[in-house]
């Protein structure tokens, strides 16, 4: 199915204006899913175990990433994301498990396979003594020997990350965002089939962040498989087709954003500013369809709903019937943080 047909279908499927802003994203995702259904496996991690002494950093982790998808690895700091990545890259030894990339076992000397992988590490890894273009040329040169081809790739990489005006700058003179862009350029210049990005937007200004996220989507559109790790759920939600939530080295949940949100009870959170509310009214609101929890504290009514549509209309109808005056009204869908909270009992941002 074409991208435009999908967009038309999804737009017209819903009359609720709330869904209208998500339509384009949804269309993109459906398109991606279609592609993915037809795709091969890019990365397969089976039963991965990595211990540091007594501490189990990765605990029987299973992951499969299909070619052509943007796969998100979401979890709090210290959950094992980077350890998994390092094991995947054959940088770290692991105690148990199998790792395959594009059907082949990855080893430190499998240079043919390594040439298809691009890596953007969590910390910026560039040479202070080389300029922006020299850095990209160096790292590209570790994969591409042909000088003319490399030159072309370097130029494309500079244009891709938007560093044309900074090509002769040294890394010390770049801001955090630009440095991250350079870091990315060094990782993707050689046009790899699999790109692994480990928290690439840490300490980055919003403009650079958006640029980075757009760039990642574009790379995927051009055919690269992306493995994206982060503890920022909004980024992962924005760009990833499938997400794995991990904590303490374990894979807690895996699926698309919608699938993950369906895992939890909460499907809508309604917040209304209201001066007073009696206990009876609170009890009555609790009786409304799909409402499973109501609380009223400091002039704020919070209603948690599980499933259903038009929950907000039902609540507002009730309040209007009772002639309550209310102010600010807010309805939001659960976030991945809510998913994480419900699964683990703690905030994603801990």
């Amino acid at each position, binding site marked *: 199915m074409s991208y435009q047909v999908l967009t038309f279908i999804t737009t017209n499927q819903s009359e609720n204006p709330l869904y209208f802003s998500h339509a384009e994203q949804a269309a993109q995702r459906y398109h991606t899913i279609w592609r993915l259904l037809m795709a091969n496996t890019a990365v397969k991690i089976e039963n991965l175990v990595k211990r*540091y002494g007594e501490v189990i950093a990765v605990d029987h982790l299973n992951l499969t990433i299909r070619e052509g998808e943007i796969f998100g690895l979401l979890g709090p700091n210290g959950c094992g994301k980077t350890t998994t990545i*390092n094991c995947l*890259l*054959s*940088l*770290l*030894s692991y105690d148990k498990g199998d790792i395959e990339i594009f059907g082949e076992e990855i080893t*430190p*000397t499998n*240079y*043919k396979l*390594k*040439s298809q*992988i691009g*890596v953007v*590490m*969590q*910390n*910026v*890894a*560039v*040479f202070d*003594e*080389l300029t922006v273009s*020299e850095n990209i040329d*160096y*790292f590209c*040169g*570790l*994969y591409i020997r042909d000088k003319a081809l490399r030159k072309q790739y370097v130029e494309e990489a500079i244009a891709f990350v938007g560093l044309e005006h900074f090509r002769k700058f040294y890394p010390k003179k770049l801001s955090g965002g630009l440095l991250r862009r350079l870091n990315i350029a*060094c990782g993707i210049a050689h046009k790899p089939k699999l790109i692994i990005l480990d928290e690439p937007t840490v300490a980055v200004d919003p403009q650079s962040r958006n640029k980075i996220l757009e760039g990642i989507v574009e790379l995927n559109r051009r055919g690269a498989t992306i493995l994206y790790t982060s503890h920022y759920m909004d980024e992962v939600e924005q760009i990833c087709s499938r997400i794995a939530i991990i904590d303490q080295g374990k894979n807690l949940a895996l699926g698309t954003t919608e699938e993950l949100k369906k895992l939890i009870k909460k499907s809508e959170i309604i917040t209304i500013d209201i001066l007073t509310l009696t206990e009876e009214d609170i009890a009555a609101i609790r009786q409304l369809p799909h409402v499973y929890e109501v609380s009223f504290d400091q002039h704020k009514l919070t209603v948690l709903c599980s499933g259903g549509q038009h929950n907000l209309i039902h609540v507002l109808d009730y309040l209007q019937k009772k002639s309550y005056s209310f102010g600010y009204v807010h309805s939001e869908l659960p976030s991945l943080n809510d998913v994480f909270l419900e699964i683990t009992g703690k905030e994603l941002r801990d």
Partner: protein
Amino acid sequence: MIQIIFCSFKRLFRNTTNMFWILIFPIILGTFFYIAFSNLGASESMSTIPVAVVLTDDYYGEALKQTVTQLSEGEDPFLDTTFCSEEEARKLLENGDVCGMIQSGSQAKLSISANTSADNIKQSILAAFVEEFNLRCDLLIDTMQKHPENAEKVISAFQNPHAFNEEVSLQKNPNVDTYTQYFYNLLAMACLYAAMAGVTVAVENQGNLSTLAARKTVSARKKSSMIIGELIAATIFEFVLNLIGFFYLSYILKVGVDAQLPYAVLSLFTGVLTGVSLGFFFGTLGKKGKEEKDGLIFAVIMPLCFLSGLMVGNMRVLIDRVAPVVNRINPAALITDSFYCLSIFEGHARYTRNIVTLLLLSILFIGLGILKTRRSRYASI
């Protein structure tokens, strides 16, 4: 690999602070050495020797008085004589005002103080003088007793001494003196300090020590080719900088380290290569960062230079007596030795042996280092 080498060059030459200090190190120290060794001992042997003379009231006393008076006259006299009693002479000796006390008699006797080793050379000169004086006195007395007709001939012969002995130098360059060996040791130390560049190469290629190293490790380039490329660049870089220092010592300070120039330059290059490879090998040991490893390298190089005679000049000779195998494998001693050989020997047998040993050491260090870093996954990063 060419790309790796050129990138490494760019990085090395752009680190101006580092480059400055590597360049200036042998130049400044060489200058200090040059200043310290200028006119060394000249003041000793050339200066007048103060001496106290105790005379007896006899012919011997008279003869001694005449001799020392003659030697105390004129500009730059040999002796600076004080005639006094024995007690006064002892006092002067105790205070260090004179180097020795000569008492006349049938045999003139020299007394010196045990408390000064500073005046060792002066004391030895005085001893030689007193012995010769006694010999001549006895000779004159014997002649006057047995062949008085020849006494005058003998006295006039006193004034025309013969030289019975001439020096033949077995070494090529007779200008190589005790203190040139300090400059050789300085060059050896400068070469070995190239080890810090080797440490940098090791640390930047060990994936568990820095993100940059991890990034390079996961790339599609063979680690050994990256390492060798960077080592080549580091060696050439250090060699060029040390060569400038070498030329400064040879042509500006003119301390005589440049005997057989092409071979001397080869010694320098081999020394630098050994230094870089030594640093590379030590840099692959353990998980410490660059600073700790630089400290470790320093703790290795200092003893090597010490054993080669940088601080205590005769150390290499002592080691040669006690444990000669140390000098055969100590890179600092080998480098110093190779410079020394070029000045001493006509042939190149010993020189070649030193160079070959250095090359073998370099290959060993680089080989061991690469073995340590290649094909490894790390237990933790």
